[in-house]
């Protein structure tokens, strides 16, 4: 009887096909979302098959889309309305190849589907998104989903690519064979979205009809485990079956954090079967996979037709260059050089414009308000602080544009391929480079992206070194220091870009070096095995990129308008009060007398060996919140100091700054050392918070602060002292 364990057959009315213990439980014949409850849909499928594109089209949200596997790494909930105007919940999930999760992102998908996440409702219905160019592999996951016994809607996505590859799929036949709605579409062009919404609006959806018998050698084990799971662990019958299959194929499912532990009886049965098989040498997981593939293979044979055999595709021809061991690197270097060059040349015009607007605003305030502390608060606090940082918006947008271009064309995965070799030298694999490359934009999404890494220790190593990659928040600091370092516009953009490139190189080298160190000491593990799918190249989706840029711009401005504004005001206050007894005291004397001045003097001994004075020290402290705050802090400090009738750019005020003995403060050496400090130091609250969340402890973020900032101090100390000794 055990071999009969299979999903119910909706073809007939009765439940004759069901084994008695399932039929006995009141399994709804057709699952209809109860009218009083909002139906919950889960969006699942292989990585990069277009789930998020579809999710965005349905919900109107703007979740991140990109042409490489592993863009979505956390569940995202959205709402859509049915044809009748009823709300429906949709959960977008990370891509997965199988319910037997191998990495944390796949585990999110598995746990949501199995109803193990307390913060997420268990989905009532499942939307399976398939990559039509790869039907067989897509169906493997669907096959497992069918076991869950929930109504399923299948979306055959990427039909355009399939057609181009000469693959014809008979969607009607597939629908007939599976017994669930099958919708052919191209999410990226909006095709199929209306049909999907219609299908989702149906009050009743059929359960899958596709039959598959658990292979005979395993069937008794499945039956026994299933019975124990439904009786001892209170699982609904079909979930029990799916979970039984999962427990037998995936060791990790047993110890999932946060899920309720299995009953002793179930664990006992599981162990007994495993031991028995180990003794017999039965490869149960292989048998199970093969059996599923056999049934899928027959299905695919009947519903697909190859209209022509494919020669090398365009992607193959492009790949011949882009992942070539010589040309590939050349292209990679060119892309990077182009990025830095455009940051200096293209951004110049909008930056100058914003600069002049900020100055004009300052002048306007000065001319309209009467002199006094309130006016100074506006000009020296708010405008100098926030304005000083907003001018760097164009550069940040250019950076995000480039990263967006890499992500949406499919180059990201190629960079991972190219980097696999150097990464293997430090003990990681090429996949770890995707989070690192993403960290050039911002370490937070980069650290999230490490969820695609299978090995826990490798993932931790990647998290630890990711913030060393120079992120967009360092950009304003680098740019300000380069501007102070190299006065005048006479110098070619190439030199400035070169210095910047050096800083990025330093950060990247640091990341590799520390990864090497950690893999050999703290987090030793065997060299990882990498399997990475390279998606076909796609033309860049400028709409998606622009959307993402607008989002980042908004975030940047919001930060400037809230955190940076607040810090600037507080800092202005701290640099203005208490007032020097002599009202005619020079701004220099006044600021030294202020709270900030006194506090700065306390830490000065610590940073003086690096060539920094207490004013820079104040910037180092405030920029613990976020690196770009350094720039606004310099704006406030040197704005306050510059006195009343000056709205010149900060860099001019900084260039004029001197030590008490009259020696210039921002010598070229100090500017460089300060940049190096920001390359290495851990100066970002949000990163600390995300590392805490992702590693589930304070240990690693604290360690990260210690090792990064410690390194920053040591490297800067060495660089400054060496520079001084050489006469700079």
């Amino acid at each position, binding site marked *: 009887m055990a071999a009969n364990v299979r999903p119910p057959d909706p073809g007939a009315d009765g439940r004759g096909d069901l084994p008695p213990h399932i039929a006995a439980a009141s399994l709804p014949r057709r699952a209809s979302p109860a009218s009083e409850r909002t139906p919950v849909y889960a969006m699942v499928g292989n990585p990069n098959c277009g789930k998020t594109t579809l999710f965005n089209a349905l919900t109107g949200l703007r979740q991140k889309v990109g042409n490489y596997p592993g863009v979505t790494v956390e569940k995202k909930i959205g709402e859509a309305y049915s044809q009748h105007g009823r709300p429906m919940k949709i959960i977008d999930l990370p891509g997965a190849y199988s319910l037997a999760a191998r990495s944390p992102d796949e585990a999110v998908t598995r746990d949501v589907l199995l109803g193990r996440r307390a913060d997420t409702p268990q989905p009532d219905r499942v939307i399976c998104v398939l990559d039509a160019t790869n039907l067989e*592999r897509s169906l493997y996951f669907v096959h497992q989903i069918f076991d869950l016994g929930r109504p399923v809607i299948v979306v055959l996505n990427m039909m355009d690519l399939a057609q181009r590859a000469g693959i014809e799929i008979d969607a009607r036949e597939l629908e007939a064979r599976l017994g669930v709605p099958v919708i052919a579409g191209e999410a990226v062009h909006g095709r199929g979205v209306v049909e999907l919404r219609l299908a989702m609006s149906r009050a009743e959806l059929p359960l899958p009809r596709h039959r598959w018998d658990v292979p005979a050698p395993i069937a008794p084990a499945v039956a026994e485990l299933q019975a124990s799971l439904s009786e001892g662990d209170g699982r609904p019958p079909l979930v029990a079956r799916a979970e039984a299959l999962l427990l037998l194929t*995936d060791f990790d499912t047993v110890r999932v954090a946060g899920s309720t532990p299995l009953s002793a009886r179930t664990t006992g049965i599981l162990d007994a079967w495993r031991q028995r098989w180990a003794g017999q040498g039965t490869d149960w997981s*292989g048998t199970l996979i093969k059996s599923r593939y056999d049934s899928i293979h027959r299905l695919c044979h009947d519903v697909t037709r190859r209209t022509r055999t494919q020669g090398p595709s365009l992607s193959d021809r492009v790949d011949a260059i882009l992942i070539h061991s010589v040309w590939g690197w050349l292209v990679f270097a060119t892309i990077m050089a182009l990025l830095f060059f455009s940051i200096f040349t293209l951004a110049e015009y909008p930056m100058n414009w914003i600069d002049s607007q900020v100055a004009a605003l300052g002048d306007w305030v000065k001319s309209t308000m009467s002199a006094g502390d309130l006016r100074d608060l506006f000009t020296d606090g708010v405008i100098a602080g926030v304005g000083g940082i907003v001018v760097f918006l164009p550069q940040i947008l250019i950076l995000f544009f480039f990263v967006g271009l890499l992500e949406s064309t499919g180059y990201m995965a190629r960079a*991972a*391929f190219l980097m696999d070799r150097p990464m*293997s030298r430090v003990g990681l*694999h*090429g996949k770890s480079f995707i989070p690192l490359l993403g960290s050039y934009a911002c370490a937070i999404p980069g650290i999230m992206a490490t969820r695609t890494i299978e090995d826990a220790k490798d993932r931790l190593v990647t998290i630890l070194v990711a913030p060393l990659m120079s992120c967009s928040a360092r950009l304003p600091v680098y740019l300000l220091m380069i501007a102070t370092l190299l006065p005048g516009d006479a110098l070619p953009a190439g030199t400035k870009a070169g210095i910047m490139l050096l800083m990025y190189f330093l950060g990247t080298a640091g990341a590799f070096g520390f990864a090497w160190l950690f893999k050999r000491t703290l987090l030793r593990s065997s060299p990882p095995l*990498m*399997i990475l799918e390279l998606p076909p190249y796609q033309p860049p989706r400028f709409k998606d990129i622009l959307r993402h840029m607008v989002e980042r711009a908004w975030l940047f401005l919001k930060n400037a308008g809230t955190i940076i504004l607040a810090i600037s005001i507080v800092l202005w206050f701290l640099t203005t009060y208490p007032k020097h007894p002599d009202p005619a005291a020079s701004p220099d004397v006044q600021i030294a007398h202020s709270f900030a001045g006194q506090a700065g003097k306390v830490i000065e001994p610590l940073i003086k060996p690096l060539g920094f004075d207490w004013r820079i020290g104040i910037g180092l402290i405030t920029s613990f919140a976020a690196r770009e705050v350094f720039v606004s802090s310099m704006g406030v400090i040197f704005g306050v100091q510059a006195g009343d009738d000056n709205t010149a750019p900060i860099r001019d005020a900084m260039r004029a700054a001197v030590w008490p003995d009259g020696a210039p403060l921002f010598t070229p050496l100090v500017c460089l050392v300060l940049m190096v400090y920001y390359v290495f130091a851990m100066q970002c609250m949000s990163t600390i918070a995300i590392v805490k969340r992702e590693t589930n402890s304070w240990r690693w973020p604290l360690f990260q602060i210690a090792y990064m900032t410690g390194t920053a101090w040591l490297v800067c100390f060495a660089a400054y002292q060496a520079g001084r000794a050489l006469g700079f």
Partner: protein
Amino acid sequence: MSSAPIPLSPLCQLPAGRTGRVTRLTGDEGFCQRIREMGFGEAALVTKISGSSTSLCLVNGMRIALNHGAAMSILVEHLPAAAR
């Protein structure tokens, strides 16, 4: 069995442009399972596109990158150049 012995070697040694058939997976259990789940298991045809330390292969129309360790643990029999 056919008369000429078919050379059996790890995937990383398959020359670029040649096709082989997967005959055995070594390596840890989780890895083997995933390779099979991706349709890359025993009997799958795999064409090496390029690569020395990191390999790029074509399996069932998908491009899959494998690092050296992964390519070492997949054993293939070389098929004659014409068979594709």
